[in-house]
């Protein structure tokens, strides 16, 4: 019994960590545009002046 409670607690912890990661990703805008970034990664040129200055 006590073992399974430990297991459930550990499992729930991991699950909540993933939920938190998902919530962060949505709030950070990771799902806002799913079309442009996959194309952008193929392009070599920097799209910001900051990148060039660094």
């Amino acid at each position, binding site marked *: *019994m006590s073992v*399974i*409670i430990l297991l*459930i607690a550990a*499992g*729930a912890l991991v*699950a909540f960590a*993933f*939920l938190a990661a*998902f*919530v962060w990703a*949505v*709030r950070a*805008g990771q*799902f*806002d*545009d*799913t*079309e*442009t970034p996959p*194309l*952008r990664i*193929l*392009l*070599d*040129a*920097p*799209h*910001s*002046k*900051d990148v*060039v200055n660094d």
Partner: protein
Amino acid sequence: MTTAPLSADLFDYVTAPGTVCRHCGDPCAPGARDARTTAAGTFCCGGCASVFALIEEHGLTAFYTCDVQPGRSQRAGGARDPQRFAAFDDPRVTARFVVRRGDRAEVTLPVPAMHCASCLWLLEQLWRFLPGVLRSDANLMRHTVTVVFRPEAVTLRAIAEQLAALGYEPVIDQEPGERTPLSRRHLYLRIGVAGFAFGNVMLFSVPRYLNRAPLDPQFQTLFGWLNILFALPVLAFSARPYFTAALAAARARAITLDVPIALGLSVLFGRSLVEVVTRSGEGFFDSFAGLVFFLLVGKLFQEKAFEGVSFDRTVRSFLPLSVRTIRDGATTLTPIQDLRPGDDVVLRPGEVIPADAMLIDEAGAVDLAFVTGEEAPVAITRGDYLQAGGRVAGHAIRLAIVRPVSTSRLAELWSHPVFSTPKPHRLTALLASFGRWFTIGALGLAAAGAALWWPDARKAAEVATAVLIIACPCALTLAAPIALGTAMGVLGRAGLFLKTPETALDLSRIHEVVFDKTGTLSLGSAVSNVVSQGFDDTEWRLIRHLAAESVHPISRAMAAGLSGTARVEGVTETAGHGIAGTVDGRRVRIGSAAFHGAIDLETTELTTFASVDGGPARPVQVRPAERPGIARAVAALGRGREVSLLSGDRESAALVSTWSSVFGARMQFGQSPSDKLDAIRQRQRDGRRVAMVGDGLNDAAALAAADVGIAVSDDTACLVPACDAIVRGDRLTALPAFLDYAARGRRVIALAFTISLAYNAVGLWLALAGRLTPLATAVLMPVSSLTIVALSAGLMRVRTDRLFA
């Protein structure tokens, strides 16, 4: 600069140089009309050549290697007003668009011309073109570009002009663009929470299903409470839209499909809660979380279909942001909201009259195509009352504003009741009646089930709740949004953009297709077939340069696509007769036979005569070029439906002879906007569902009144009236295939409804027999939902190639 420009040689492998435009890929042989040949290659027009030169100057020709001819033809944009972004110099205007973040500013502009990886690449190189720009992020899905810049170093106007110079004309809306829609993020969060709960609840429910006997009571209690813990956020957060919708429906005393869903979900949760608390069972929490999860995924499906297809514009985006006003002798720009009666404004050719006004100048010309539907510009004289919405033709005019913008006639047309009342979609009506029927049926069955088991109160309650749970029409709510949402996406890629997925269903039930004006069916004045005989190239060029001075439709057709310059002097225009002048030192006359003093020449509405240096007058004929394949398309539309033409053009022998072969006797000419509206209304009173195909603001009322209003557009950046769908001009011929596809959507939904009802019947039988176990629910519900999703999405996707042919 760290990046070396990539080789642009790829272009040469793809197409032999000189046969297509180096920039946009349109066919253009060297020496063709308007074509330019430079060291870099051949261009279809001056616009494309200058965009190429600009890109080359900045060492960015890699643009042409990312995609095959990524440029968009600039031919149509030749006559754009260089001052059109002047409003962005005004801080009162820019303040509405620009978001300030410390010393940086951010603006999001819609750029409809963006369409491929090359566009993305070039738009994100904007900082190389303009010193003050820090970064630019293009969004291909929403066709917007977000520019971050230093406001002291670069103005919004410079940014807009740079984008336009690169061939990406930004659309200036009255309302600023939005970088990210917040509602979408909420939907993702709701789905995430529901999915998270679904998985974890499953973890605690499966042991019971796998164990033949009930679990150890200790575990049962622990798992039950853990399930409640996980299901609570689903109830409070993920499922909330369904409860609010059901509450709103209840308040409006209407029963939508949301009502049985909310009912089913509450009963599902309530009964599960009672079972766990009283330790009488393990509850249905897995079904509950799964149900909400599937419902939300269906909703996401539906919303995804909207992506990149948003075209809802109001009358304000068609009006300019600000106009030049003369106050105390000085010219200033005034935002149109601030215009007062009595203001003295100057409008240049091509600009739209923002409010009802009176002409101060001696004379001028206005193109009223948007207001009255008439193609030819109208001559006006001092004191004439001008309605908002007219476009200035000829030369710049001075006007005195008579009424403020909001009360102008155009705004009144826009606030006409047909625009404000949402159209009763067939689907909405269908679902409303279905929802009512379904709710009453479910409640009745639940009561009957309870009565059946009555002496046993506990069993009766169990049966009644089981009926309500299984009767939850989740699969039904998934079928229509997914089938129609998929249809909307497929049609959008094929060139027909729907405003809402429901439109697809409306489209499948059309009795009659009404075409508005022949302009819809022909290619427009910019591409008319101009036939002239007997002039050499030099003479023809001179004639076209003179024609460019006139606003007459024939002259406009002759001058369309003209490039290069000529010295035009001493122009005299006799309204209704002709125009004369000296071009590059040679005398040129264009006009009617009488204008040339030759009465023996046969004159028709679409013929004019021209002469050079007093030579013989030769005929120039203008024929509106019929869209290729339109006759066949109209014939195909006519199978099973009626097709007719309601045109605003004046009836003429030439028009009748051109279109009678296509429409036969079902043609009416000289129809004013209100005639068209009445005609549509009359057909609807006769019980016919009408689709109206039109192209202008002038028939906006008729488009809005029709069951489906379809606007034809050849320009991605064009303004769009209140319509339900937009079809690309070159895809108009595919309209019959689109309608057939919409009919398929209706059949798929009917099939999905049947299957879903079959699942429900099995579930109800189990429920009434008192044998609906959590396991049976956990299997039945997801299986029925998944079947419906697979069926509706799959059947709408297979064999769609004919739509794109």
